[in-house]
């Protein structure tokens, strides 16, 4: 038999001014099961809380209802008080007679009656409350970071420096990502490599970081604090332990005319190669697709010249398993290229290039050693047209969004061009200039005013060749859409930043959701921007949306901080307000029929399949099971389950049902 205590708060006069609190207390006392009912000026004050504690001990209360302000205000306060008095905190409920009653209604009978109704409702609920224990989930304090670009590097370093183990997985032969391809960076124009490579080296040398380059995530199972990752280490055809990175093999390799990915196709590389001089790790990899030996069975020159016999032609991919507690996804982005812009002659004319290619031209370590020479004939271009929003903000191209970085790097490109080719004439065709960010607007102005970059506002309709020149046809919308024609030696397209080609595939391996453009979805657009809907998996950098370096780094540190918080205890403790699937003694085992409709509805992939087997190991039935580590307690599955086999603690069927009946004055009559 329930022994409920009801505590009515005056909240000074906030409640008592419009609600007859004495009468509420008197009415509450009549409710079956209520053994104690008092009102007091300030329940949340120390003496007020003391009233509750004393009553719990002296009257042996099995449940407490505090009729006062909103539970969003003081529920924690009173639950703590109950706990201190030895009553399970989840046996305490708050009846909101202030925000939902005294403050919103005039003084009078109806208002007092409503207060009584609210109290009766919560009494009915609390009678059905169960003592709950916080959920504890063990945490493996190792983080898995996917992607070795600047975001991945930053996240890995921050987590490692916080004293936790990190496994960094990079799909390419070296970490560094797109940033390592950049020449200078806006708005400071400091050299990208110069600020990046020290970080790369730090990663390589960090005692807490295990780097798997030339590797990819095969699969991820488990849940927050307890993931099991399977990582494929692709065969480099090389014994990394023996290899000293002397580079002899790469010099001797006879197959040299392979377009270099690092140089965005503007330079070439041999079949056994290190993507760029500062690569980490500085160990070559054999590109089996192009290697003569793999194609014809002859050559093996690298093997002969290798002073440490490190070459391993027969090496196979290796799958390694790792237990991790959290995952940071920093797989970055891709830029639109190939024949995406036929109207701009891309892929048709050698001298129409994309932004990344211009970065390589401008880079001191690039194919032209930093001299701006056009791909077709190596001449220094006298005139360069930069076309912004190539693809971005263009629903016709299926990309409605703004790629965000283009305005800035286009200004930078134009500037770099002027700095390198003083007499050159850069013209930027743009739609709008988006230069929001510290020192960004100033930077663009500098390009216009100090470096005399000409900005023409208007979309370019097409680019075609005429007598060795590239004719850029557009309109100047600032001059009444006057048609503009500009003869350029080189055309640079600020192509849209898009999701990685295999973004969906990875998302499915990770069980995280993604948006219409295949960028990974954050748990909440405003309040949980670095979390995914899968607890324990976080986002950093451009895999979530196009971002520039500072933003990527900031988000990476944010993700690292989340991981740090998760790793700060050996047990993850969570409120037990989660769903549970019915379990019973044999022969029933569970009322669940295993239709798993709930699985589809769960936003958190928290519902698993459990096989119930008899002593003989015979499968009896497969039923749903809620993973307490993943469930966030929304209760969508509960309302969906036809057989009422899932219930949610804190808002259980019995609790809400009794609330409805009690509110309508039709609670159980026998107390």
């Amino acid at each position, binding site marked *: 038999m329930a022994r409920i205590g009801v505590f009515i708060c005056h909240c000074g006069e906030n409640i008592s001014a419009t609600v007859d609190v004495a009468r509420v207390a008197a009415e509450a006392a009549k409710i*079956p099961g209520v053994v104690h009912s008092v009102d007091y000026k300030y329940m949340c004050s120390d003496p007020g809380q003391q009233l509750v504690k004393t009553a719990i001990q002296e009257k042996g209360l099995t449940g407490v209802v505090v009729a006062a302000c909103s539970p969003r205000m003081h529920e924690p306060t009173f639950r703590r008080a109950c706990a201190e008095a030895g009553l399970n905190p989840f046996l305490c409920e708050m009846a909101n007679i202030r925000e939902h009653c005294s403050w919103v209604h005039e003084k009078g009978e109806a208002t007092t009656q409503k207060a009584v109704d609210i109290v009766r409702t919560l009494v009915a609920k609390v009678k059905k409350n169960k003592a709950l224990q916080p959920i504890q989930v063990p945490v493996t304090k190792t983080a898995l970071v996917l992607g070795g670009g600047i975001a991945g590097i930053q996240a890995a370093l921050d987590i490692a420096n916080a004293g936790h183990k990190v496994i960094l997985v990079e799909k390419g032969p070296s970490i560094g990502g797109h940033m390592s391809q950049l020449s200078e960076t806006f708005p400071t124009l400091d050299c990208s490599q110069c600020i990046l490579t020290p970080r790369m080296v730090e990663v390589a040398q960090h005692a807490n970081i295990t780097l798997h380059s030339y590797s990819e995530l095969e699969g991820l199972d488990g849940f927050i604090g307890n993931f099991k990752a399977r990582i494929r280490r692709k065969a480099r055809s090389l014994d990394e332990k023996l290899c000293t990175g002397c580079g002899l093999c790469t010099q001797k390799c006879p197959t040299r005319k392979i377009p270099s990915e690092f140089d965005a196709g503007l330079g070439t590389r041999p079949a056994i190669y290190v993507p760029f001089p500062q690569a980490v790790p500085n160990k070559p990899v054999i590109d089996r697709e192009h290697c003569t030996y793999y194609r014809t069975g002859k050559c093996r020159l690298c093997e002969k010249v290798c002073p440490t016999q490190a070459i391993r032609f027969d090496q196979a991919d290796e799958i390694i398993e790792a237990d991790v507690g959290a995952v940071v996804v920093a797989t970055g982005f891709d830029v639109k290229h190939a024949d995406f812009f036929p109207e701009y002659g891309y892929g048709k004319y050698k001298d129409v290039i994309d932004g990344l290619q211009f970065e390589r031209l401008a880079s001191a370590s690039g194919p032209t050693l930093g001299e701006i020479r056009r791909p077709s004939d190596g001449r220094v271009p006298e005139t360069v047209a930069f076309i912004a929003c190539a693809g971005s903000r263009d629903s016709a191209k299926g990309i409605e969004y703004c790629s965000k970085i283009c305005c800035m790097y286009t200004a930078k490109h134009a500037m770099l061009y002027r700095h390198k080719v003083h007499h050159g004439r850069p013209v930027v065709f743009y739609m709008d200039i988006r230069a929001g960010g510290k020192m960004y607007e100033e930077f663009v102005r500098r390009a216009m005013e100090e470096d005399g970059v000409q900005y023409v506002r208007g979309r370019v309709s097409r680019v075609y060749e005429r007598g060795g020149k590239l004719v850029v046809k557009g309109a100047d919308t600032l001059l009444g859409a006057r048609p503009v024609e500009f003869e350029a030696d080189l055309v640079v397209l600020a192509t849209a930043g898009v999701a990685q080609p295999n973004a969906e595939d990875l998302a499915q391996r990770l069980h995280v959701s993604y948006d219409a453009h295949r960028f990974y979805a954050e748990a909440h657009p405003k309040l949980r921007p670095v979390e995914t809907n899968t607890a324990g998996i976080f986002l950093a950098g451009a895999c979530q949306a196009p971002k520039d370096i500072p933003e990527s780094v900031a988000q990476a540190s944010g993700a690292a901080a989340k991981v740090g918080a998760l790793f700060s205890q050996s047990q993850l403790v969570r409120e037990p307000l989660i769903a549970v699937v019915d379990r*019973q*003694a*044999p*022969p*029933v085992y569970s009322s669940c029929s295993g239709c798993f409709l709930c699985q589809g509805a769960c936003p958190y992939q928290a519902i698993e399949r459990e096989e119930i087997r008899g002593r003989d190991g015979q499968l009896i039935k497969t039923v749903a099971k809620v993973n307490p580590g993943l469930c966030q307690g929304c209760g969508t599955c509960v309302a969906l389950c036809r057989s009422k086999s899932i219930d949610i603690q804190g808002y259980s069927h019995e609790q809400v049902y009794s609330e409805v009946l009690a509110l309508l004055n*039709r609670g159980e*009559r*026998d*107390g």
Partner: protein
Amino acid sequence: MDNELRSIDHEGLGTLFSRWRAGGRRILAPRRENEKTDFAEVQAPGEACLDPVQTAQSAKSAVFPRVEELFAYRRRDGLVELRERDLADLPATVLFGVRPCDAAALAGLAAILNWDTADRLFSARREKLAVVAVSCTRSDERCFCTSVGGGPGARTGSDLLLTDLGGGGYLVETVSDRGRALLAGAEDLLRPAAGREKDKESRLARVEKRFDPERVRAALQSLFDDEVFWTEQSLRCLGCGACAYVCPTCACFDIQDEDGRRLRCWDSCGHALFTLHTSGHNPRPLQSQRWRQRLMHKFSYMPERQEALGCVGCGRCSRACPVDMDILEHLLAVAEAKP
């Protein structure tokens, strides 16, 4: 008791109806409503529909309603206050147009509900019920009243038994004092049956006797543990309660409390929930066991305990069954089974 045969024409019957109603009796009779014919209150004989061999539902709700309040209670300062069901408000009823099998079924119901102690509500309703049966001039392949001690013109359970004279009104047999009371002061409407009118038998439907219930009872006892037999017999059965709810003698019920009222509601041994224990254990987890229970109860347990059969051969269950579990067929299988 006086058994002289008389007859009444349709007009006379109409007058009789109005007199009964004037005397404060409500009249329940088969009424046709969208394809189904079932018992409902009528004012005049014309509203009654006696064409179908049987009504879909039995007439048992006249004495054993689908849901009935046994008593009410409420809490008052720590005490529980009981309010007995007032029997005075139960209506005096004439049940018109039931078939002889349904009339006989009332005895079956009584056998269960009044077995050890008399059921207050049932008895009160039964007391106030007068049964005017109409013997069967037609039957169908579902009927087997003659196999279970009844017949198309049997008088058991009726107070008056009418037999359609084919256009010319009805032959009237007064079976009980209650029947006599129904006819009190109706002499003007009745006239002695004359000549061919007396020949009731010739008008009755022919229902062939198909089995001997005693044989079935004996067979059931030896078949109880024959799982194979019962599984075979019930593979098609879906375990709904249709058969039990249309049955004139099924009396299983469930007790529910609702808004301070204790209710008695029809239930069926065909439902898995019927025998489910709180522990989760179910002594009859399988439909085969529940089907066995249905036959055992009607043809073995009741004869042994209540010296009455739990079946009057009306065939309603067979007609209502969505999957053609034809009870006659199954009883024959039992009778012929070689355990």
